């Protein structure tokens, strides 16, 4: 049995992306789910499954109550922060493919800027966590610093520079500049601005780090068969995978033989290519998780777009631009559009497949989406029907 081709995304919804939503996280979740159902042309009563992140403060039953969803036969949560994003859709696809549910909505909603900010030191994360006791008490207490430790070694091993990281930020912000929904709409940056932005955790600068955002995104999944009867062109789930690697930690997998790869993303890549029967050259748009720029380079290597250590050469010459060989994050990514734990990237992939994106790439057949990096993660390949 394969999930590939069995299910499709038929609806996407979101709130506005802001720095202060002014309303509860539950209300954001309910608004996004309702928006996605409207997009799909479905009613709350059609929904029988809900999936979210373990980090989400909104329980499935709370969301069901607000939407008036009467019965749920499938509900599930995925762990490991932003690594959960594509796995929520994987859960939904598996539930639909096995008949556990017919219409599943995946959602993520938070006031991540006006409420609990991930960019601050997560003192609470250290309390009671033996895993985190080898890093937080030693002064390594923010996601940026944890990625910076990796980035320094990657630079040492492969000769990458801060400017190489900066090129990712520049292309994200260029795309966000022409996306009206993006927080950084009409605010592109130059490489010089990246290079003069302040240090956060060397070798990461401010402009290597994604935004902190308030907002919510919801994704509606149903069977490919039912999808064909709905109002939007289906974005068929060609592949959906999770991955965890050897000696895996959350953000601090520093004890492996090598500290220049993301083996958990390698696990995801192998499964995506196997399930879909596709390869890197078949990808028309790459929506790569970009909470911090260095991991975008590493993902390109793990996913097979280039050799190890070669990403800095691969991205040269406009490769990641909208008209380049591998358009990256046409919505502006989490550096440019908003940080919604990767869920806004899935919505962008759906728009690219439908042909309705603000920065639409021409003749899109397949879009690759990845989830959080540095953590156990997940990925998707969405395609036209």
């Amino acid at each position, binding site marked *: 049995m394969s999930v590939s081709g069995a299910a499709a995304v038929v609806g996407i919804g979101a709130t506005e992306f802001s720095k202060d939503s002014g309303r509860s996280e539950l209300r954001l979740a309910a608004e996004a789910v309702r928006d996605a159902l409207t997009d799909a042309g479905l009613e709350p009563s059609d929904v029988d499954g809900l999936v979210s992140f373990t980090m989400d403060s909104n329980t499935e039953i709370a969301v069901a109550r607000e939407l008036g969803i009467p019965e749920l036969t499938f509900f599930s949560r995925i762990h490991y922060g932003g690594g959960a994003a594509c796995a929520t859709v994987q859960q939904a696809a598996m539930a639909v493919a096995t008949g556990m549910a017919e219409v599943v909505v995946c959602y993520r909603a938070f006031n991540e800027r006006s409420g609990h900010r991930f*960019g*601050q*030191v997560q*003192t609470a994360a*250290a*309390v*009671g*966590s*033996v*895993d*985190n*006791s*080898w*890093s*937080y*008490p*030693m*002064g*390594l*207490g*923010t996601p940026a*610093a944890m990625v*910076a*430790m*990796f980035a*320094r*070694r990657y630079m*040492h091993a492969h000769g990458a520079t801060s400017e190489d990281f900066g090129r990712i930020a520049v292309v994200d912000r260029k795309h966000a500049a022409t996306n009206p929904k993006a927080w950084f709409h009409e605010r592109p940056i130059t490489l010089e601005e990246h290079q003069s932005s*302040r*240090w*956060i*955790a*060397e070798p990461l600068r401010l402009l290597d780090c994604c935004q902190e955002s308030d907002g919510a995104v919801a994704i509606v999944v149903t069977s490919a068969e039912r999808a064909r009867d709905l109002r939007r062109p289906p974005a068929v789930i060609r592949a959906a995978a999770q991955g965890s690697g050897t*000696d895996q930690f959350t953000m*601090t997998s*520093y*004890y492996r033989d090598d*500290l220049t790869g993301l083996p958990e993303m390698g696990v995801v890549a192998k499964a995506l290519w196997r399930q879909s029967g596709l390869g890197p050259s078949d990808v028309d748009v790459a929506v790569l998780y970009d909470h911090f720029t260095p991991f975008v380079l590493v993902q390109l290597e793990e996913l097979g777009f280039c050799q190890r250590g070669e990403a800095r050469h691969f991205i040269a010459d406009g490769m990641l631009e909208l008209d380049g060989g591998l358009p990256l994050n046409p919505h502006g990514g989490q550096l440019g559009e908003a940080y919604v734990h990767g869920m806004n990237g899935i919505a962008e992939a759906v728009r690219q497949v439908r042909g309705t994106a603000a920065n639409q790439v021409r003749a899109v057949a397949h879009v690759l989406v990845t989830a959080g990096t540095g953590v156990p993660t997940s990925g998707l390949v969405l395609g036209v029907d």
Partner: protein
Amino acid sequence: MTRVEEEAARIAAAGESAPRLARDPVNLPMVLNWVEAIGDANPVYTDPEAAEKAGHGGLVAPPAMIQVWTMGGLHGQRSSDDPLGAMMAVLDEAGYTSVVATNSDQTYHRYLRQGEHVAVTTRLDDVVGPKRTALGEGWFVTTRNTWYVGDEVVAEMRFRVLKFRPAEKPAAVAEAVPAAVIRPAVNHDTEYFWQGTALGELRIQRCGGCGLLRHPPGPMCPECGATKPTHLVSDGVGEVYSYVVHHHPRVPGRATPFVVALVELDEGVRMLGELTGIAPDDVRVGLPVEVVFTKVDDDLTMPTWRPRAGGGS
């Protein structure tokens, strides 16, 4: 002249306070308590023969007890004409609410004998300030006590205090460094490590089955499946494998910027810790380092790193 100086001049001009008589005459029981507490074994204070032999003509009291005789007792109160009390009140009112004794000098004119009844007076010598001190802005207040037996001066003391306005605690602004550190969670699998740091040992888990070295540790060996973890004590030397210079945001217990290094120990495992004793710009991958144990408090000692002496490459 400030108000503090005016009041100081007025109080000083009033001169000596009226003599205040000691509660009890000089007596043996109090001397015995005092020499025991202080550990003074000189027999002239307790053995009449020894005192005689020493030429004192009978038991004498330790001169350093002079203040003892005129102490007010547990519920004692200053007399109304006490110049030190008056000066304290003036400074309290001016906002200099905290006090710390800075120094005293005593002069003994002769030994006191059992049964002599002393009295004490106080006068204000001077008040100097305002001075900037580490504790805050304050005034040095010097008083002089004189002990009498009848009209005879038997001892004197110059006594100085700093009366200060406590330095304001920094408001909760970005530059302030939070006092609390993030503490590790410790369980059965990891307590050996933290017990080690408290003893000055950097311990690495070693499998009791196959000998695999492993950090961070865990209860079951991923190589052989044994659940018999032991440990060895690392030499504590290695090289920087990677590092971060942390600038933002603030981290509890640390001033920014600071360096956190991932160190590959000579035994082959990697371990995180703060790297001190080197400018952040001078840190590089491959820097030879050694462990330093930094005691946070009685319950926590952190392993940290410093550049290894003579470890240049």
